[in-house]
């Protein structure tokens, strides 16, 4: 079998990696192989940001709709991601920037402006989260330094939503974030990196195939199983690979000797935890993140077509630009390092009952394009989920793209998220609402909830209570009552059954208060976080 070493740019040179299990994380490689211990492990699940690194790749032409939030340095596009759940082979053909790289960008200074500002502002205490903050801030710095703009303090707080600090209380870090722009500038020279990445690309077949032993799964003779990692670059390659090796999974233990299993991999923000927390056997990996046809966003037929492998960051920016009511959800959907790694397609195909993408998109009547071989079929999102973590994908089939029709100008839309923390929290429940009046009556209504059942689904009874009715307090009250017929939610660590139901009711009530014909209330009168999303980058990119 053809196998190639993983090649990527790190600390000024192209490095090679091989013979490591294909599920080796970037963090493991940095700390254990490269002995670059500046990047820290705080949680190993993508939630604390101590391992934040920046991945740079050659920008693709298809990126456009979401560019206001993109970080470009010359021909490179930069993304802050969590190294703890990023598999090393996905770095092939990319560059890895870590805290160790920053000083080399500022040869005239002892410290990069990001680091100097952190020091000046007393922004580190125990220092363990600091390299992660430095890298998230570096991404902000690179973005604004590139275009000469200056972020607001609020924007910087949003940029840091994926980084936890337990010591400082954040004030000095936000001070540093603002101060870094006042210091003598430092610049990354992108050209040597871009040249190296072009050379790797020119030298990489489609698909990139990497095979490596995994000592956790020995065969009967005690030899480590050889796992394969495929990174196709064209859609046809992906389809062919998948057709050859259906994703039906043999029982977990049967990996050695039994049928090979193949797992589709996108951002690894969930699958990364399968391996490093649950020790599940994912078998071979088929990575969709480099497939050109799946990574674009297009405006088509009055709607958006979002490739299945488009990162959440870009997808939500495009959605929020098209539908401003989605800004708050776009801002609160995970933290930046997860949004830059995870994909909208992964979020939908994974089909978690508490995923935040599906309720909003269901309310907008989104549809999925599914592909097997060269054949495609289209399915409404609200028909996709069959049961808890089960969906309508057939063997060999994969999610190609998401079609999101833009709502009619008169349609009122909202996307709500309810969680213990504003930032980067898994919802107790989330909700997508779309409603259009036909005269004084409700002509069109979609109400979808996550966190209220085993799958994300529409509230049929509540919709029925509104549809065709006069848009009135009485109709809304009836819909609120009908939610109890739609959902019997569970109690768990995020909320009790009763709390979920009463908040679901109250979200409908708030929608009424904000959209009633007489004296509607403004968000500033109904939301404690009103204004935060207005000053986010989402709003910046969504501004007309």
């Amino acid at each position, binding site marked *: 079998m053809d196998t190639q070493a993983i090649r990527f740019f790190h600390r000024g040179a192209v490095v090679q990696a091989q013979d490591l299990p294909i599920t080796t994380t970037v963090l*493991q490689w940095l700390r254990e192989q490269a002995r670059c*211990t*500046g990047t*820290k492990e705080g*949680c190993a*699940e993508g*939630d*604390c940001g101590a391992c934040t690194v920046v991945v740079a790749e050659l920008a693709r032409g298809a990126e456009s709709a979401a560019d206001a939030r993109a970080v470009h340095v010359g021909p490179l596009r930069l993304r802050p991601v969590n190294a703890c759940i990023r598999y090393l082979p996905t770095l092939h053909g990319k560059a890895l920037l870590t*805290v160790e790289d*920053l*000083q080399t960008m500022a040869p005239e200074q*002892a*410290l990069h402006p*990001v*680091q*100097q500002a*952190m*020091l*000046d*502002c*007393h922004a*580190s*205490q*125990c*220092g*363990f*989260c600091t*390299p992660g903050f*430095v890298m998230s801030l570096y991404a902000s710095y690179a973005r604004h330094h590139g275009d000469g703009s200056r972020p607001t303090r609020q924007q910087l707080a*949003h940029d840091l*939503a994926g980084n*936890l600090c*337990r*010591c*400082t*209380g954040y*004030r*000095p870090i*936000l001070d540093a974030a603002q*101060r870094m722009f006042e210091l003598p500038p430092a610049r990354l020279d992108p050209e040597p990196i871009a040249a190296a990445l072009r050379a790797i690309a020119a030298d990489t077949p489609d698909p990139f195939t990497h095979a490596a032993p995994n*000592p*956790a*799964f020995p065969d009967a003779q005690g030899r480590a199983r050889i796992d394969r990692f495929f990174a196709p670059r064209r859609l046809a390659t992906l389809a062919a690979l998948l057709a050859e090796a259906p994703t039906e999974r043999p029982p977990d233990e049967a990996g050695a000797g039994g049928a090979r299993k193949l797992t589709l991999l996108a951002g690894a923000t969930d699958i990364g935890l399968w391996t*490093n*927390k649950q*020790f599940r056997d994912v078998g071979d990996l088929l990575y969709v993140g480099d497939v050109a046809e799946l990574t674009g966003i297009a405006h088509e037929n009055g709607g958006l077509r979002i490739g299945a492998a488009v990162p959440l960051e870009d997808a939500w920016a495009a959605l929020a630009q098209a539908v401003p009511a989605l800004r708050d959800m776009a801002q609160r959907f995970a933290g930046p390092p997860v949004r830059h790694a995870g994909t909208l397609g992964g979020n939908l195909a994974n089909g978690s009952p508490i995923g935040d993408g599906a309720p909003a998109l269901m309310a907008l009547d989104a549809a999925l394009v599914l592909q097997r071989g060269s054949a495609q079929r289209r399915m409404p999102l609200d028909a996709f989920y069959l049961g808890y973590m089960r969906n309508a994908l057939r063997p060999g089939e994969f999610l190609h793209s998401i079609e999101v029709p833009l709502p009619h100008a008169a349609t009122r839309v909202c996307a709500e998220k309810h969680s*213990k*923390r*504003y*930032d980067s*929290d898994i919802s107790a429940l989330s909700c997508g609402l779309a409603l259009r009046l036909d005269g004084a009556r409700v002509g069109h209504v979609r109400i979808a909830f996550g966190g209220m059942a085993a799958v994300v689904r529409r509230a049929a009874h509540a919709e029925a209570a509104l549809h065709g009715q006069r848009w009135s307090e009485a109709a809304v009250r009836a819909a609120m009552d009908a939610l109890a017929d739609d959902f019997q939610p569970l109690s768990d*660590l995020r*909320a*009790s059954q009763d*709390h979920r139901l009463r908040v679901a009711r109250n979200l409908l009530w708030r929608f009424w*208060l904000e959209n009633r014909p007489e004296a509607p209330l403004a968000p500033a009168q109904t*939301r*404690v*976080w009103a204004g*935060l999303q207005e000053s986010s980058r989402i709003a910046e990119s969504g501004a007309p």
Partner: protein
Amino acid sequence: MNKPAQPLAPPPGATETAGFGRGLPPSWPEAEWPALRDGRRVGVSAPHESAHLHVRGQAPYTDDVPELAGTLHAALGLSPLAHGRLLDLDAARLRALPGVVDVLTAADIPGVNDCGPVVRDDPILAEGTLRHVGQPVFLVVATTRELARRAAARAAEVVHAEPLPAVLTARAAHAQGQYVVPSMHLKRESAPGALDAALRAAPHRLRGSLQVGGQEQFYLEGQIAYAMPAENAGMRVLCSTQHPSEMQHAVARALGWMDHQVQVECRRMGGGFGGKESQSGLFACAAAVAANKLGRPVKLRLDRDDDFLVTGRRHGFDFDFDVAFDDAGRILAYDVTLIANAGHSADLSAAVMTRAICHVDNAYWLPEVAIHGHSARTNTQSNTAFRGFGGPQGALVTEFVLDSIARRLGLDALDVRRANFYGVGQRHVTPYGQGVTDNVLHELVEQLAHGSRYAARRAEVAAFNARSPVLKKGLALTPVKFGISFNVPHLNQAGALVHIYTDGSVLVNHGGTEMGQGLNTKVAQVVAHELGLDFAQVRCTAADTHKVANTSATAASTGADLNGMAAQDAARTLRQRLAGLAGERYGCRPEAVRFAHGRVEAGGTVLPFAELVRQAYLARVQLWSDGFYTTPDLHWDAQTLQGHPFYYFAYGAAVSEVVVDTLTGECRVLRADVLHDAGRALNPALDIGQIEGAFIQGMGWLTMEELVWHPQSGLLLTHAPSTYKIPTANDCPPDLRVRLFDNPNAQPTVHRSKAVGEPPLLLPFSVLLAIRDAISAVGEHRVDPPLRASATAEAILDAIEAVRAGVAATEAVASATVAA
């Protein structure tokens, strides 16, 4: 250390090597320049001694130290049961797994299978009984960390045990009389029976309950120990710990060795917050036992999920109170019961409960008072130290009660607080018998109330609420009085070791540990100040049991008080020796010799410090010294709970303004004003960092941070940052104004500074009570909201529903009365 860099913009008089390992930051507060120019090295905002390393990722933590060849990796196998009889372990099955070198159980511990800090009831590995889900049962040692973890994760398959009934809540354990240490009772009456009489006869009486949850430390660096066999039956352990001496003793006990065989070292922690005071012991012991058995270095670094499952945290408390008060809201009598969830073992729970009992008074005179403390034994993780150490829980109940009293009487809560403040020279004796003699509450609170426009904003909040149907705002001011010293007098001692090398550079070692609080920075400042040196000439080293022996934990906020004084003592001895020589050589009295800016002035001669040091070496003057300090005037009777446990008190107060969504229960802190007494600050920037950090951490505890155990299995469901939510940058109040209250310590502490680690953790009581105020506005302040902490959205909506139900009931009674 890295080569010192050129300063970018040094203030006049600063030298180019003034910072720790680098130049002064250009943002050094201008107000401090004159002090720096005068040669002061304390009272100035030196950057953290490792800041230049932190930002480069070059500050090594335990896991960053290069591993020795042959290092093995360990992982703990955890109990799947909350309570059970341990029957058998199928270790053979684990040994057959890839990479596994050995599987250790309690039987492999050559010495004592215990790592309890006070009471010997904390097995390193389970023996006989399983006590909580997550209790370590066995240790897998493998060639890689991943293979060790994979094998250990099979615990549920290989641990054979018979389930026993589990007790999962403190209330349930209390009902069954299950405690980890004997219950404590403190009663102070003006005459026998006066408490009950006052409760019965008072014009107003209020009885109720309160619940406050625990809190995970969430140090960013998880627990870790790296044990390396050393020559002549020795063991060197690198460990992320606040208490190297206790680790040394615990490892020696576990191995059945003498203390001198074990060396424990900690250069820095990635946060501690109390979680690495006693509970780093289990990991140090387990790694050392494995390293000794296998004769190979063994590293045990916990995954975050295991860290949550194995270790304990801040004790959750349940309270029942009965309080009598007059028309002005003055407390006349107060009877309060504290039930702490101690978890499965004693750990530090007795000391935590003692501190809780000693902080029930917070800032207030309690004339007739009884306090009962029960440390309930449950089948959960053993709870331990966490910044504040019971103090916050003890004080919170009384702040909650005063808030209710104010609402009952229709008074402003601040007026009720003022009416109850400790007096000066009267009404000033705490329930435990210590007089409050350094009281600055009145001035401090006045200054804060004025500076924050408390009264005007109270009116603005009321006006907002009157016209806002969905969102309600709330405002609260709460004070803090926090006792400084370990409650156990003998722990209040510290040692230090200061070396001057012949080039004039100085190395400082002391018994404290660096966990981010800036202790090393402050101690280095103290030494630099004594010897008249710039910061770069003084270097701090790792805490090391081979250097300073028998140290106390870096805890109870005492780090700088104790170790700063010990280092000052050592530095003064050295200065006196040098001054003696200089006086002799240059013809002046030793007291007239001046040390500043790296130079020494004696009898009109000025010479570089290094030159005098060189002369001293040639003259065979001892150029290193130890230093020692004990806190004076402490005594404590643990039986009667009476004495003088605290050297002094630290004070502070905060005003918080919040907005609450009455539909979803979400809330946001809009503004917080803090005025805090750090004495005469050794380092204002570090102290403000401590205050702000404690404020946000305490705010997290009281708002979004919630621990949830499965009600049947006892599994902790909030196991990692995905499920346990600590504040992010967006939770920091957009308007946060923190100031130091200039107040030289009445006691002769190091440069008259005050401890600052824990006291500000109590400041965000103002957040919780502002939330309660906002909820109360739903019922126009006629119904007392029964708010629990953490005040999550769900807790807030529960309280709002209770207020609405209370209003409805009142109105029903009113209309029934009218109808009658």
